[in-house]
């Protein structure tokens, strides 16, 4: 049985003052604080590659857990903004930079904000079908590579970060069967065009507010749980407004929805593991629902539970 053992991260020290940036577009401070939710946006340096962010997260994870690099069997990287032009796969470059053994199985998963939930299921299944004991799931999708600073819809939202999650039989968090969703008819609403990210904010908001609450209910139902049986709802931090819109549909547990992206912004597939990293050690949390949604359009939800 593969479980989550630990999570570590690397958040670059560079910051964009999002309130000052918003002012250049005529947006108010209250709009940034209350609706966007990101007061500053984390930024990598131009010299830092995606694999550099991932390698720092992996090294932090190995230091945190005391696990030796030589004990890692698999490395999986969730990204759509990998090193260079995406060939070779970033996980191969990261294997080298993080000092992992050449016996490691390494591959990338091309997903955005739903990627962490997918990644947990993929890595867990991969480990259990191959008999591997320790694998690292990395999220590293620096959107600063594709942000047009003149595009107010995207430049106020996204930050850079990387996370690394160790899965092993010694882990303490079981991963429940997930629920997935895909609607490629919405692909144009969040895509890269001529090297720059474009987003139809209304359509992405509409999709999320309409489908994610239903998927959360489906995941709870699939696992025979009531909304009250979940201690914490760690959703992808798309924006403060979208967390509010989803949590509004669960009035009895609304206060359990985490809204925490002020320091980094939307870090794509890294938002959920960043939330978990700060909360997994709190004994008050026994069962946490996680849900990612965005580019694709793609959405995925699962539950993790502390081993009894």
């Amino acid at each position, binding site marked *: 049985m593969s479980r989550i053992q630990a999570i570590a991260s690397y958040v670059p020290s560079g910051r964009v003052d999002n309130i000052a940036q918003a002012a250049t577009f005529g947006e108010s401070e209250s709009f940034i604080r209350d609706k966007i939710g990101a007061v500053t946006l984390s930024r990598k340096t131009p010299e830092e590659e995606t694999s550099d962010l991932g390698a720092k997260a992996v090294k932090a994870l190995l230091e945190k857990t005391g696990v030796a690099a030589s004990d890692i069997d698999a490395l999986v990287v969730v990204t759509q903004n990998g090193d260079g032009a995406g060939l070779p796969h970033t996980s191969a470059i990261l294997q080298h930079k993080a000092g992992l053994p050449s016996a490691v199985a390494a591959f990338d998963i091309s997903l955005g904000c739903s990627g962490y939930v997918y990644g947990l299921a993929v890595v867990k299944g991969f480990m259990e079908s191959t008999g591997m004991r320790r694998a690292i799931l990395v999220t590293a999708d620096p959107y600063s590579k594709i942000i047009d600073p003149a595009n107010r819809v995207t430049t106020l939202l996204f930050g850079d970060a990387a996370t690394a999650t160790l899965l092993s039989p010694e882990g303490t968090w079981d991963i429940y069967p997930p629920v997935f969703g895909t609607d490629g008819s919405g692909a144009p609403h969040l895509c890269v065009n001529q090297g720059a990210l474009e987003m*139809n904010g*209304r359509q992405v*908001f*509409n999709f999320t*507010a*309409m489908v994610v609450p239903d998927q959360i209910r489906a995941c709870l139902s699939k696992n025979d749980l009531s909304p009250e049986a979940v201690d914490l709802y760690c959703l992808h931090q798309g924006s403060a*407004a979208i967390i509010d*819109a989803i949590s*509004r549909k669960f009035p009895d547990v609304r206060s359990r929805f985490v809204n925490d992206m002020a320091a980094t912004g939307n870090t794509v597939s890294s938002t959920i593991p960043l939330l978990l990293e700060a909360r997994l050690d709190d004994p008050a949390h026994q069962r946490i629902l996680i849900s990612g949604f965005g580019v694709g359009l793609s959405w995925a939800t699962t539950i993790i539970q502390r081993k009894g």
Partner: protein
Amino acid sequence: MLSIEQIRQAIKSADVNVDAATLPETTTFVDAGLDSLDFYNIVVELQEMTGITVPDQDIDKLGSISGVQAYFADKQ
């Protein structure tokens, strides 16, 4: 057809910073101080209430309570 009361209920459910009960029917949501994300929330509630998906090209028709009523009267 949506009643004015149903539209006010949708605005209330959207949890936006305006008094849904007293908002004049012809006052635009923008003039009432609502931003784009408030407006998106109202549209989501209206879509859930009616089962009708509002395409981007129609979104400007929903700029006030009276505009919302006229739009959905035409659709239903």
